[in-house]
């Protein structure tokens, strides 16, 4: 849609070295458009998280990881560059899969990165920053009376929004989210999804998800990985309605099929009308019958 590209990968390969070398990502070249939400999908172990973590050099903290190729933020490379990794990671934020509160108060959790970078004049400005980002993730009203209590005392859903606030507070250009709703109950997950939806106007969000439904609901663009290879990257409508690659078709229909089959086999004992099941499922039940 918009022609602006926030992040580009150029022949990016990631290898886990060890007793046996495992190539987790094989020469992936991609463009992530700015101010859009791109979902990275694929079966477990296809390299989704590997791709995400190599986008802001977070993989460097692990031993035995080799990275080839490069990633560019705008037109600036992030690997072959003099810019130190912490500054890269400030500009490309990361929210992990598990909701993680730092061992600090709610206030300090949000202020954490801001304080490190010294991006504020005085404590009044810091207060303002903390409040504005807590509002941005719809958490302010729930926590404004207990900013000094430990962040870990919040519910997991609240902690995940706290994580978003903390990441956003350092004003990143891109936000990487690793299955941020997978550890949450449905209601909290929905709140986090709402938050992400409202954020994508302002930020470039790249999100790993294993839920096709979530990708359909949120994504503007979809990247499909399979065994470390890029299979297809397209805007969401084309991807779901008119997938180009054979494997994408299989994955989309197969995914729908497995959901449908699980559901119907669960219900088969109680003899629920299979038609109702099929109609209720938004995935393609037609593909199942073959």
């Amino acid at each position: 849609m918009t022609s602006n590209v926030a992040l580009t990968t150029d022949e990016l390969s990631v290898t886990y070295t060890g007793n046996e070398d495992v190539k987790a990502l094989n020469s992936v070249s991609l463009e992530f458009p700015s101010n859009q939400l791109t979902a990275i999908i694929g079966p477990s172990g296809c390299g989704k998280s590997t791709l995400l973590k190599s986008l802001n050099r977070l993989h460097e903290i692990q031993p035995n990881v080799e990275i080839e190729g490069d990633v560019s933020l705008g037109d600036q490379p992030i690997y072959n560059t003099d810019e130190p990794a912490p500054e890269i990671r400030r500009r490309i934020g990361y929210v992990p899969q598990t909701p993680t509160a730092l061992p600090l108060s709610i206030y300090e959790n949000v202020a954490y990165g801001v304080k490190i970078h010294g991006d504020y004049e005085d404590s009044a400005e810091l207060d303002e920053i903390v409040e504005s980002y807590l509002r941005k993730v719809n958490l302010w009203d729930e926590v404004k009376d207990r900013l000094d209590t430990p962040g870990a005392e919040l519910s997991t859903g609240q902690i995940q929004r706290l994580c978003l606030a903390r990441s956003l507070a350092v004003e990143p250009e891109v936000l990487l989210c690793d299955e941020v709703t997978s550890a949450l109950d449905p209601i909290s997950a929905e709140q986090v999804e709402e938050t992400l939806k409202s954020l994508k106007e302002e930020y470039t969000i790249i999100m790993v998800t294993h839920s096709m439904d979530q990708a359909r609901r949120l994504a503007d663009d979809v990247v499909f990985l399979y065994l470390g290879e890029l299979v297809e990257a397209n805007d969401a409508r084309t991807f779901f309605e008119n997938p180009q690659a054979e494997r994408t078709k299989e994955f989309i229909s197969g995914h729908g099929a497995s959901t449908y089959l699980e559901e119907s086999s669960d219900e088969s004992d109680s003899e629920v009308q299979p038609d109702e099941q099929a109609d209720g499922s938004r995935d393609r039940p037609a593909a199942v019958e073959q």
Partner: protein
Amino acid sequence: MAESTESTESSRTRGRLSTRLRRERISSVWFTVAGCFAIGIFVLIVVTMVYQSLPLLQEFSVAQMVTSSNWNPGENQFGFLPAIVGTVYVSILTMAMGTPIAILTAIYLAEYAEGRMKTLVGTFIDVLAAIPSVIFGLVALLVVVPFVGNYLAPAFGSSATGQGIFTVSLVMSIIVTPFMISLSVESLEALPDELRETSLGVGATKWETIRTVLLRAAGPGIFSAVLLGFGRVFGATIVPAMLIGSQTQIPDSPFATGQTLPTLIVNDFGELMSLPLTQSALIFVGVMLLVVVWLFNFSAMLIRRRLKRRWQY
């Protein structure tokens, strides 16, 4: 035919069930007995020690003995102050030297060391922890005592034989550091990687992550490690007995000789136990040690709980 098989089968399983239930009851009794054994031993020790120190407590007041520095059991003078001061002195000096080294090493091992280096350093620390302390005492007599006596103490303007508070503290800090390191490394390595990723993900450096996030999150564990070290120093016997010089006086410098509560017991119990009041006095020293260690553990538990709540993640 079929019916009879069925009924024998059911009576057999029923018989088996009652055996199983009986075993269940007996086994739970055994476990309870084993658990209560710990309580029994505890009560036995406390009752024996308090009972045995009563003769002394009937003669002298605790306040008087704890503040007097005259220790002369032959003449019924039981001033515990020198040994108390010596114990506190050694403990604080040991921890002041050992704790920073322990925490720095633990951070290095858990967060910085990689591959072969990590294995190497880690193995050596485990090996150090496994050396019996009497061997540290022997080596220290040959190496540390002459070094302190000939070079270190004169450099600070005091003349000393080399035996004394400082020597004990130095050696004790080498003895307890491996324990503190192992426990601290465990606490740090038990932290989820998400903490590191979260912190690095907003642009923190590794050191900022360690200082603000990891040391807090692992704080209660590290705190326990330090307190366990403290407890070990407090009750240490053989190394202080070999190296402290065993003169019951209030030390006037770190290089002075002295006495700790445990060394007071080991140095005097052989010959002087024949005097009933002295025996009672030495057992009372044991009571004081126990009480202090318990107080220590108790307050440690309270503080740890507070830290855990405050620094939860």
